């Protein structure tokens, strides 16, 4: 009986130590290796939370010469002309006498030398230079002359057509194969490094996938698919943008003119709303608009991976917007900056206030630490952070002041540095209008309208919004943000928004604080 119990306990201990999601040495993933001779897979496993791989699995692929040393806890490796020395449990590796630190140490695991995944990028990649390309995020190792282009994708969904944009870096030739149910892009490459798959389950496209280990992408059509067109554009960084327009049966059945169909081969959707002329019969119309191109001068704002600066995009759009508003609507436009110069945040609101602008639109471009956060967002002021000022304003909304001619007059009090508090409701309405116009033309963030205590908004003495037009962090978005068609779409959206807001303003009872009123 005692013997049976002992066996049971030992069995339990053994099974516990080798089970569970984070058991030592359990195969967790793999590194896919592309070379001109084909594809290999190197399994990886976790040891104390670190992803490792066996050196012996990698050695034959890159001709590593491994020599055991007299000391069992060290290992010498010859790679190309470099001599690498590993020491067990030491987070420092010697390469030709130069020390390279690692976050986790090589170790002997189950009788074999295991190296952390970062060893590939930090130690081996500099040695092999152009013939060794480790892509940690996609767990790909590209060796020799193997060609594995990176592909990022953006899918824009529309009412009548969708657009799938693929950025292929470097540019790679491809063939198109189509049958009734599928469109297949066959790239002339060893493999594909697809950074992200768009989430598709729509009427037009049912699925988007890479065919197993091949350099082919397959797009499965949905029930409403009618036709497609592909256009491409070379990028300055050696990449290429493929824009695939997928037209719905609904759209194909309408009386769409040839021009409308042709215009679908653009980066952004055409302006589907005709721009009406402004109604000048309304007394509470908009006469001037302050446009604030975010950042400038020493303040570059967000920066894209290809070197695009937020300050340049916002200025380019602001200058176009100024021209269109002045020419088409006949309104005054006040720019807080019309060149690449540094302008303080409080000066921007002051420029708008001093010129008695009726609207304040601040243009920005976003950047996110997470690449999935893309699309336009509109912000208006959150007043929770200014509750004491709001309370003061509520308690002292008006005050009598003596005048030289005798008597007094009542003025509306305005806390100059928090002037926006009186316009939050109108700013919220403006945000909604801008969102409705933008979403017809460009991609929106899933949370398109937000409130925040933004410095540039709080001092604006008029309805004010800050628009983040997209994320420059994403290379495809970065390219899109600089394209003429995208910028034109933004300009058209904002012009339409100004018109719509002007119409609604006529129905607004309260215009915020009036300048002053004489008291009898």
């Amino acid at each position, binding site marked *: 009986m005692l013997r049976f119990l002992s066996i049971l306990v030992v069995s339990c201990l053994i099974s516990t130590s080798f089970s569970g999601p984070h058991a030592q040495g359990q195969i967790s993933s793999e590194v896919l290796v592309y070379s001109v001779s084909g594809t290999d897979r190197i399994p990886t496993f976790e040891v104390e939370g670190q992803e490792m791989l066996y050196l012996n699995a990698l050695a034959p692929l890159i001709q590593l010469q491994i020599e055991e040393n007299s000391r069992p806890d060290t290992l010498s490796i010859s790679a190309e002309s470099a001599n690498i020395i590993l020491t067990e449990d030491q987070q420092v590796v010697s390469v030709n006498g130069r020390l390279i630190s690692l976050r986790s140490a090589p170790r002997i695991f189950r009788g074999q030398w295991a190296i952390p995944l970062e060893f590939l990028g930090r130690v081996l990649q500099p040695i092999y230079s152009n013939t060794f390309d480790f892509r940690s995020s996609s767990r790909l190792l590209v060796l020799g002359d193997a060609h594995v282009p990176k592909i990022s994708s953006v899918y824009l969904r529309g009412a009548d057509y969708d657009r799938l944009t693929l950025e292929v870096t470097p540019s790679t030739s491809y063939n198109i194969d189509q049958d009734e149910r599928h469109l297949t892009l066959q790239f002339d490459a060893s493999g594909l490094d697809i950074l992200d798959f768009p989430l598709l389950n729509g009427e037009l496209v049912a699925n988007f996938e890479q065919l197993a280990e091949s350099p082919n992408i397959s797009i499965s059509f949905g029930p409403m698919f009618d036709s497609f067109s592909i256009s491409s554009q070379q990028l300055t960084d050696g990449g290429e943008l493929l824009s695939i327009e997928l037209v719905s049966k609904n759209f194909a059945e309408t009386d769409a003119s040839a021009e409308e169909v042709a215009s679908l081969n653009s980066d952004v959707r055409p302006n589907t709303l005709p721009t009406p002329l402004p109604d000048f019969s309304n007394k509470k119309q908009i006469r001037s608009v302050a446009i604030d191109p975010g950042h400038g001068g020493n303040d570059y704002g967000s920066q894209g991976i290809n070197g695009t600066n937020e300050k340049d995009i916002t200025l380019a759009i602001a200058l176009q917007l100024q021209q269109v508003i002045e020419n088409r609507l006949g309104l005054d436009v006040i720019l807080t900056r019309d060149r690449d110069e540094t302008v303080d*945040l409080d000066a921007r609101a002051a420029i708008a206030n001093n010129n008695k602008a009726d609207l304040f639109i601040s243009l920005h471009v*976003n950047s996110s630490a997470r690449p999935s956060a893309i699309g336009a967002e509109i912000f208006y002021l959150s007043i929770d*952070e200014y509750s004491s000022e709001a309370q003061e304003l509520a308690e002292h909304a008006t005050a009598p002041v003596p005048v030289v001619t005798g008597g007094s007059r009542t003025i509306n009090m305005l806390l100059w540095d928090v002037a926006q508090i009186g316009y939050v409701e109108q700013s919220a309405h403006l945000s909604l209008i801008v969102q409705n116009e933008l979403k017809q033309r460009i991609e929106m963030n899933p949370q398109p309208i*937000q409130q925040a205590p933004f*410095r540039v908004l709080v001092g604006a003495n008029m309805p004010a919004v*800050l628009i983040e037009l997209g994320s420059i962090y994403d290379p495809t978005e970065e390219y899109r943000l600089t394209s003429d068609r995208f910028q034109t779409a933004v300009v058209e959206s904002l012009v339409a928004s100004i018109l719509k807001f002007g119409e609604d303003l006529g129905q607004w009872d309260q215009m915020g604080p009036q300048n002053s009123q004489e008291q009898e």
Partner: protein
Amino acid sequence: MTEAIKSSRLKWNKTWSYVVCTVATIILITWIAGSFFKDGQQVSVRNSDNGAEASSPQNNQLQKIDLYYISEDGSALVKHEVEVSKTETLLAQARIVAEQQLQQPEAPLLTPFPDGTKLRAFYLAPNGDAFVDLSQEVSLAHPGGSLDEIFTVYSLVNSLTGNFPDIHAVQILIEGKEVDTLAGHVDLRRPLGLNMKWVSGDDSLLLSTEGL
């Protein structure tokens, strides 16, 4: 002889009285000083700029706290519970939490703070306003972007106001100075209170931290 004895007793009594008075005075001063500095509340602004107070953990006791990181889809902050050493004072404890919030977490958690951001000093005012003095990297190395700037600010504000009810608001300073913003967006001219609207309540956004 009797006079001599009386004189001697008088001397002894005088000496004894001095001793008693001196001891009583020392005890009184010690008690007053002790009560004054007991919890630091009487000090107008408490300063912990060298972390000395943080180095006196209470018998290895641990406190569970919530830190905030960027969600996997980049659209919100998510809570992440950790345990830190418990210390004697609110000031020291809050400083530990602020330092912990600035640390780089393990993947998949993603910090909203740029690399190299350091806590220079931490102050606590009697009205519950905390002043967190950060190194210039928080501004110079910030990637920009409204939402990420919001996440940077409110991860710190929420980790202090959310974990310590006695801290009502937090103002971020950079290199000892008040600033307008970190990267051109969020107004930092006044202390900011807890704001959970930037924190995801959607479980689908929560990061998997299993095994961390």
